[in-house]
């Protein structure tokens, strides 16, 4: 007589037997899944987030213009409010929004590190919090969800989720910085499911994590990759019935998962041309689904637009072709001597170029994805030393700087060298403290200048990881920063310049950190849009300063004391034009290399401001009559 069937093990066993290939099943809908391209909402400035309002309204954060804009179903602008500032009701680069049951609009006012609540018409109701690491404080909050009278905030710069009551009191803090279960690395979106559970887009860990109503970790799914079920910087979450839609931003697609974390459906593929749309994406970030489930709205801040998708009915959406070789340059780059180093974040690689001539020539690429030594996880910032052929790469996800040494061919300097680098050393910044190495540069004496944008602090370190100097904290006064983005050194004048973007100014210090002066990087003359926004800085051979303005799409040229000289660029895709430029660096002969980020290329200017060369993926705009690829 047989007894004792082991029921529990049989259940696990069934999972092993059944968990075999094929797409998982999701709930069936008569009108099909989402993914049919419907239309585009244009002329919205850098929209990072979107929420669905009542009556089919669509609420968009125009992050670049510091506005909240409300559109109707047909895409007409109904109302808009906000202006750049810190007073109640003013906004600074808001990147998260949600609509509560009463139609109130809750905004993550990112640049002001606070939450603001408006009523439907945009009248200011309340605000709370501010910059800080304590409970109740926020750093760069970028995701909002509202559920059951509570407000969930993706507290990105603190690498946690914070839950507030409607009165702004901090109710709970979930998680901390890290890569283990229940820890986060720059989470940027939150959503509460129909099951009452909290879902978090753990962006730099390339996964979605799930928590219960008390904040206890339940599970997680996803890791870095282009295949179904894998993610690359998930940045937006929205529920479509019982499916969770995830904006898989660097895979340029939306994936739908069931509650077990199985990939059920996906739509979207990478843009084929500059400014392409029609259902193809360029780094989408936010998503919302209308209350009736008829449409999904996806934001693309780089393209200043949102795309709207309806349901497919019984059409089948062709799965996009498997990933082709596509790569974008990163936002930062650095030149020294005859060497230019340029990260390619999609490949987790760094490119090295010889810049003796007018056109940079690729002489090698190195880098591989991973957390081990010599590998890169999220490494956007680089600097190089051409005399020793050393390249320093800072890894924001792992909190370290790594040194690589390049093989140089003295006889054939322009020859491509396979296996060009060897990993030499890793500097684990955690040995000093929790430092996020957002930007890095180096002086001639070999000291590393590491800018931590989250803590608003600059650290000067030697290669034994001794702290030579450190200064800065959050604030408006001289010597304090708000969202600093870049650092550059003028050896001759012994100055350290820091782009204090949030305060719309550039500050100059001596190498020990004593404040020298500050200036607004804007022309004295009126009439140039967005003047004063600044991102990257480079120092020319005679001390001139070259500062990128991503909002005016220009490079501002200033004297060493900050006096305005002239502007190059202007918005556009042609030679000499720029679109959302970011990093900038100067070659030894005065040539300027700029990351023309919105045009997915690097542009080279000669010292007179003439565009002399370009690098990179620059598919021209589609012309009438061009066939789709």
């Amino acid at each position, binding site marked *: 007589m047989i007894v004792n069937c082991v029921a529990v093990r049989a259940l696990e066993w069934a999972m092993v037997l059944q968990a075999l290939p094929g797409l998982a099943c999701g709930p069936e809908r008569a009108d099909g899944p989402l993914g049919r391209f419907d239309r585009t909402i244009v002329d919205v400035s850098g929209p990072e987030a979107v929420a669905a309002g009542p009556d089919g309204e669509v609420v968009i954060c125009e992050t670049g213009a510091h506005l909240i804009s409300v559109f109707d179903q047909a895409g007409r602008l109904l109302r808009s409010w906000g202006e750049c500032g810190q007073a109640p009701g003013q906004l600074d680069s808001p990147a998260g929004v949600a609509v509560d049951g009463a139609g109130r609009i809750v905004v993550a006012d990112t640049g002001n590190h606070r939450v603001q609540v408006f009523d439907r018409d945009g009248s200011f109701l309340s605000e709370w919090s501010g910059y800080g690491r304590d409970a109740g404080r926020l750093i760069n909050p970028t995701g909002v969800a509202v559920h059951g009278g509570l407000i969930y905030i993706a507290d990105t710069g603190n690498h946690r989720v914070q839950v507030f009551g409607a009165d702004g009191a901090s109710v709970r803090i979930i998680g901390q910085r890290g890569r283990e279960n229940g820890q986060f690395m720059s989470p940027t979106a939150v959503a509460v499911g129909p099951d009452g559970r909290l879902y978090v887009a753990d962006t730099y860990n390339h996964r979605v994590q799930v928590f219960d109503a008390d904040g206890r970790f339940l599970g997680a799914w996803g890791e870095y990759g282009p295949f179904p079920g894998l993610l690359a910087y998930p940045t937006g979450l929205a529920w479509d019935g019982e499916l969770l839609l995830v904006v898989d931003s660097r895979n340029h697609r939306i994936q739908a998962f069931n509650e077990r974390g199985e990939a059920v459906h996906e739509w979207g593929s990478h843009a084929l041309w500059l400014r392409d749309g029609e259902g193809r994406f360029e780094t989408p970030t936010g998503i919302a689904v209308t209350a009736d489930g008829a449409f999904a709205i996806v934001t693309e801040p780089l393209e200043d637009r949102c795309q709207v998708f309806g349901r497919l009915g019984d059409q089948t959406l062709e799965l996009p072709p498997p990933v082709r070789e596509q790569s974008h340059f990163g936002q930062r780059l650095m030149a020294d001597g005859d060497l230019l180093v340029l990260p390619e974040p999609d490949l*987790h690689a760094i490119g090295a170029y010889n810049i003796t001539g007018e056109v940079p020539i690729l002489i090698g690429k190195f880098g591989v994805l991973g957390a081990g030594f010599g590998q890169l996880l999220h490494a956007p910032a680089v600097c190089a030393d051409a005399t020793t052929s050393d390249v320093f790469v800072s890894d924001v996800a792992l909190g370290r700087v790594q040194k690589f040494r390049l093989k140089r061919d003295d006889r054939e300097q322009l020859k491509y060298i396979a296996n060009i680098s060897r990993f030499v050393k890793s500097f684990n910044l955690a040995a000093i403290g929790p430092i996020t190495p957002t930007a890095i540069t180096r002086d001639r004496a070999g000291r590393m200048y590491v800018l931590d944008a989250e803590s608003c602090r600059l650290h000067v370190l030697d290669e034994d990881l001794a702290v030579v100097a450190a200064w800065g904290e959050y604030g408006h006064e001289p010597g304090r920063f708000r969202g600093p983005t870049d650092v550059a050194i003028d050896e001759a004048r012994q100055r350290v310049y820091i782009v204090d973007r949030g305060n719309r100014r550039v500050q100059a210090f001596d190498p020990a950190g004593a404040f020298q002066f500050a200036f607004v990087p804007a022309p004295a003359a009126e009439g140039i849009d967005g003047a004063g926004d600044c991102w990257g800085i480079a120092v020319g051979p005679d001390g001139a300063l070259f500062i990128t303005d991503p909002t005016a799409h220009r490079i501002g040229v200033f004297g060493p004391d900050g006096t305005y000289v002239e502007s190059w660029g202007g918005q556009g895709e042609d030679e000499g034009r720029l679109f959302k430029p970011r990093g900038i660096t100067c070659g030894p002969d005065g040539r300027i290399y700029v990351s023309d980020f919105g045009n997915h290329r690097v542009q080279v200017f000669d010292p007179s401001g003439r565009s002399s060369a370009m690098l990179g993926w620059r598919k021209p705009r589609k012309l009438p009559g061009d066939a789709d690829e």
Partner: protein
Amino acid sequence: MMPLAARTALRRAAAPGALLAMAVCVAGAQEAITFTDVERARIAQLSPLGDPPPDPTNRHADDPAAAHLGRFLFHDERLSGAGDVSCATCHDPARAFADGRARAQGAGLGPRNTPSLLNAAYQRWLFWDGRADSLWAQALQPLERDIEMNGDRRAIAGLIERDPALREAYEGVFGPWPGNEAGMVDRVFVNVAKAIAAYERTLVSRNSSFDRFASGLANGDPSAMAAISPAAQRGLKLFVGKAGCRMCHHGPLISDGEFHNIGVPPHPEVPGRDSGRYDGVRLLAANPYREDGAFNDADPYVRPVQVRQGPELWGQFRTPSLRNVAVTAPYMHQGQFETLRDVIVFYSTRDGAVSAGHHQEQILAPLELTEAEIDDLIAFLQTLTDTNPGADLLVPPQSPIFRRDAP
């Protein structure tokens, strides 16, 4: 590591060195094919195939009585839910223990191609995705999988308990019937699999004409070297040379037993995309019948090796052994290629290859072989055939009870 822009074709030029000229006289052929020292060393790695490595996780692995019982069970359709499918249904002894189909057809149509069981005892990992790490752990799964045999362990244990011959055979190998102890159904079920595994260990195939040639080459015996044609010899030179096959198809098993993504396009009729080793590692981790689990007969203090896990495993599948490849069409994990020529043309042109993403291994560039070279490679691969491990191993015994003198 280089993620890759220069797709380097790994072309192995013959190294300079003392050439040993061997005149090979095959009927009608006048050409002399010579092998360099490097080629000889590489060919010597491919043969002979020794005895299967021991499997300490299965104390009955080399027990003839267990293998005899296993041979009986292998062909016994009563193990399946509907009584119409046995292991031999898909692992057909007359078809090199595969089934000649693109995808397996048991109780239902499966998503993957049936691998041959010949030489399975030499593989480190079982299944295309390596989710089992021993022969017996593999044998368990099809027994209970709905689209394979759709059986149930309680029913199987009940069958053995009630069938006198099976009962006696079982007790002859595994000792007295467990009775109503806790976990007895699982233990019987695992023992069934271990018996089948013991049988599968006897399915050794290592006497192909290539093996005779390799022996002849090593010993300087021209008549043994005549075992394969000049075309096959040229193909062999390509195999260990510029075609680069031995990167993954090396050793006497002619497989590294590891996992690679070579960009084979998915079969159009299979829905979704097969993640291969990526989910295989997770399933291995969840597998209660792993070698470090409770049913392992080996020394419990042997620490198992940690396997690397990560997204680079996506789409990787186990390198098949090329022994008997000529008779185990169709090829690849979903039977995507019908003929050997299709496979070699795929490697040669890389037409239709699916990109493996930025962070996957990048081993393959188009070989650009000539038609003659493709023919030669096929001729060589055909010399790897030896499908008969022993005539009596191909059919079930009359009785599951092992008697040393009986068939």
